Structures are given as C-alpha cells and as structure tokens.
C-alpha cells in the first residue's frame, strides 16, 4: 500500500469534480447566466434552467460519481473498508 499515491489519486479526482462543480454552478449558473439565457432549452432559458434545476441534478451526480470512483481507487490501493 502506497499512501501518497492513494492520496494523490484522491486529490486528482477531487480537483476534476470540484472544477466541474464550480464551472457549472458559479460559472454557468451565475457569471455567464445572461449569455446562456439567449439559448433555449424547450420552454426554458438555458442559464435560468441551469441555475434553478440543472446544477442541482449535477450536484447529485457528482457525489455518486465520486463515491463510485473512490471505491475503485480504495480497492486499487488496498485501503478499502469492505
């Protein structure tokens, strides 16, 4: 078991997921909401939909992706708890 390799793999995964988290919620949902609102998604303006619906769905997905990936990383490094 290599503790620092495990920790680096964890940090890398976190960095990727948190970047997506930030770009979609703060980037698309807040900073870029006006330009995105010119695009339509059915009866929604895209920016508005991301801010009030899409970002929340994404948050749920991000956590489950993290849980599943980490389970694999845990096993690869022999530090799994099950």
């Amino acid at each position: 078991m290599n503790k620092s390799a495990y920790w680096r793999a964890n940090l890398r995964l976190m960095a990727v997921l948190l970047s997506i988290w930030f770009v979609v919620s703060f980037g698309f949902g807040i900073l870029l909401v006006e330009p995105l609102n010119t695009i339509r998604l059915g009866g929604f303006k895209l920016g508005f939909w991301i801010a009030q619906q899409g970002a929340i769905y994404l948050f749920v997905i991000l956590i489950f992706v993290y849980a599943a990936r980490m389970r694999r990383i845990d096993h690869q490094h022999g530090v799994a708890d099950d």
Partner: protein
Amino acid sequence: MAWQTTEMDTTTLSYLFVGLSFALYIGIAIWTRASSTNEFYVAGGGVHPIANGMATAADWMSAASFLSMAGIIAFMGYDGTVYLMGWTGGYVLLALLLAPYLRKFGEFTVPDFFGSRYYGKSARAVAVVCLILISFTYVAGQMRGVGIVFSNFLGVDISTGVIVGMAVVFVYAVLGGMKGITYTQVAQYVVMIFAYLVPAVFISILITDNPIPQLGLGDTVNDGSGESVLDKLDNTLVGLGFDAYTEGTKDTIDIFAITMALMIGTAGLPHVIVRFFTVPKVSDARSSAGWALLFIALLYTTAPAVGAFSRLNFINTVHDQPYVYIDDWFKRWEDVGLIAWVDKNADGAVQYAPGIPFAGKPEFTGQLTEEGSRAVTNPPSDTRNEVYVDRDIMVLANPEIAALPGWVVALVAAGALAAALSTAAGLLLVISTSISHDLLKKTLQWELTDKQELRYARLAAGTAIVVAGYLGINPPGFVAEVVAFAFGLAAASLFPAILMGIFDQRMNREGAITGMLAGLIFTLIYITWFKFIDPVSNTAEHWWFGISPEGIGTVGALLNFGAAYAVARFFPAPPDSVRQLVERIRIPSGVERPHDHP
C-alpha cells in the same frame, strides 16, 4: 360565511393527519430507545447509508425550506437561485472534503475533532461556542414554524402549538437520542416529501397538463396562449411593470457571495456533519451524502416550479379582480393579517403592481371597508400596488389558491410540521451532545460513567427544548434575520478549520484558532452592523465589495484561511500524534465504531 363549512372539514382532516403522524413519530421513538451514549450520540454507528440519507434530508430541510422557500422564489425569480444552489451545492463539498474523513475520525461530535486535531481544550471550546451559537439561532426559527402551522391549520394559538411541538420533540429526542431521531426523521422525510409533491403535481397539471412539476415549469400554459410558463410569467410581470421573472435584480457579485456562503455554511453546520458519524463505514459516508442530496433535490427542484406556478396563479386570481368576487382564500389570509388591500384608485378592484402598497406590516383599524375588506391605518404609498402579501403564505395558500381539496391542505400541515420538528430535533441533539460530552466531560473533565453521561445528555436535551420553546413563543424580533448569522458563522468559522485540519498536516492550533476567531468576529460584526446597529445603511452602496450581510460569510471564510496560514508559520508544527491522526483519517480502511466507553 360560505367558506366556513369547507374550512371545518379541512381543520378536522388536519387534526387527523397531524395526529396520525405524531403517533407514528412517538411509536418509532419508543421502539428505538437509546441505552448507551454511543446510541444516543451517533445511533451506534450502524445506520444504513440510504436511511441516513433520508434522515439527513429531513434534518436539513427545515420549516424555511418547506414553507418559505417556494414563496421567496416566487417573488425573487432568478435571484432565488442563491437558495436553490446555495442549499444544495454544499453537499458536494461535504461529500468530497469532509464527511468521509470525519467518519474515519470516528468520535462522537464535531468539537471532538477540534479537540484532537488541534490538540487542546481551547480549540474544542471555540468550536463549542460556534456550535451553540449556530444551533440555537436556527432552532428558535423551527419552533416558531411549528407554532405558525398550528395556529393556521388547527386554530390553536401559537404558544399552545409550540408547547405541543416541544412535547413531541421531547419524547423522541430525549428518549431515543440520535437513534430515535434518525428513524423518526426517516418517517418525517416521507411525510414531508409526499406533502410537498402532491399539491405541486396537482398545480402543475392544472396549469400545464404536465404531472411532473420540474418539466411543467418549462411546459406550455394550457390557456391556449401557446406560451411557456416562464415566458408567460415574464410577459405578465413586465406588463405590470415588474422586472422579468427569469432575470435577476441583485448584483452578480452578491449572488456569487451569497451562494458561496450558503454552500460552505451548509458544509460547516454541525447538525448536518454529525449525521455522517452514524453510518458504518467511510465509503458509506460518501454515498450517504449522495442519497441525502438526491432526497433533498426532489424537493429543491420542485420548489422553483411551485414558486413560478403560484406567482402566476396569484396574479391571475387577484389582479384586476373586484374585491367582492375575490376568492375566499384571499379573505382568510386577510383575517390573519398576512394579506391586506387598500383601494387606492377607489375602483373596488384589486390592482397588483411593483413596490409596496404601504410602509411596514398592515395595521388594521378593526373596521371593514365598503367592499368588506379589513381597513388599514397605514398611509398608502405612491405606487399603484394595492396588495400587501406575506411571502411565507405561498406554500400554505397554494392549494387553496388552486382550489385543491381539503385533504391536500391538511397534508401540507402535517408536512410542514414534519419539516420543522425533524430539523429542531437534529439541532437539539447537537446542542445537548456538545454540553454533556464536550463541555462537561471533555472541557471541565467531570468524571462521568457512560450511564451518568447519558443522563446529562438527556437533561441537556430537555433543557435545550425548553429554551428553544421559549424562544419560539417569545421570538426575539430578529428570528428571520438570524439565518444569515447561522450560515455566515458556520462558513467563516467551522468549515475552514475542519478543511485545513484534514488537508494540511502543517496547520497547528495557533493558526486554526486565530483563523476561526478572525472569521467569526469579522462576520459577527459585519452582520450585526448592517442588520441591527445601522439597518438604514443596509444597501449595496455601503456594503464592502457590494456584498450583503447574507453573503459576507464568504469573505469571513477567506479571512479565516488567510489568518490561519499567516499565524501558523510563526508557531511550531503540530506534534507527531496529530500527524499520525491525519494520516489515519485519510485512509478508509480500519474504521472503528465509536467505542461505548471512550
């Protein structure tokens, strides 16, 4: 009055639903009695991750989420995004940055982590102060919510309502501790989400024929206009002189700061963190956060639909309606003072427009006007708007506005109580735990056996309920304002310190304590200044960087990080035992259940 017959039925049904749900909660409490501190503090560490996810969702979603949020969004439009993203996005931080490590740490309380990681009583004491400050401000609002539901649905006065609510929480929190609370919260989640979704589905069908509110929000209004709900709302509001619903009025920087403060505040709230101490394993803590957010998202993605539908419904049933023909719900809420009407242009009809109809809350003369509305003494403002409407009534009034059957209204009452009671119980538990475990046992170092500690925990829970009930009956005038406090303080004090404790081995107690105090004091002063000392200047041009008191926790958190790193450099690195502790919590394997006799 014609509505009295239907209202009688609704009240009877409300009693029935509320009574049945209370019986269920108490039944669960008796079935899940706690017999050790381990069970009382962390439910024995054996809760299934999905059950814990549901319990966390109920714990998290308070009376404010259930009752107020959709109404706030209805009137804020896009700006309501701060609550929708702010109160959900924090779970990503919790799942990735805190929950798995704190579960591996494997003790009972959040201050336990501060005591071990920052080696000493002072860090633990600062954490206890933050925790109690945050939790008490929060719990007072819940008890108030209980009282309001009782008074509106069951026709009892607020004090009686609060006392009944206190008695129920007392039974299952004091008896069952975390174990009782957890399984009651699972039941409360089911009651709450059912009560929220049923009226939302009905209203979505009424307006768009689409039974799924999340999709109905983007669907076409079924009035033959061919416009989508949001387009119609935008057009209607702009036609009346309002800003478009889908475009915000707050500055981008403030939206950004408030959303961030609510997110990191969420991740730093002790009653949420502690829920992840109850699952068996580290991997369960990760997935449980996902389940929690999934259950929360069910309500949080419905809320913006409810908000938009209810605003549209409200305008359609009220604007330009002659008062004598207006629906009964309008008059019923007028009776409790949450709606008022002044006929400024003397045409006998209600006009809805931007701006306030008059300054402040309505002061009724006790006389009726010619049309039969309650006359107010408030001098009318110079806007065209004639309607005063309290935002909090939207969820409660929505089923009535949409003319849904009485059992739906009764269901909403039971759901609102479930939301308030589950959050109150979670908060009371962390308060009692921090007093019996952190204060008496660990800080004052009383020699307590497990049995004695359990007795003190129950005593503390009982006392906390009485104090919370008192605050619910006699709310300090600022209950609504203190939510900003709770989140701002959690964001500026607890979250950064825990994060640095896990991810930076070099962080020492001097740095962490300085950081917490800097963030805490700065945020306290900023909020107190603009909310209480000089509320007149609480406007964008006076705020620092254009950030409102609601969003200042973000700056407080940055200050916390900055101060901690600056100070930590001048003091020695933490001892080896702490380095080993950090190494240990970073590895999922070898998890221990919290010992029965620590």
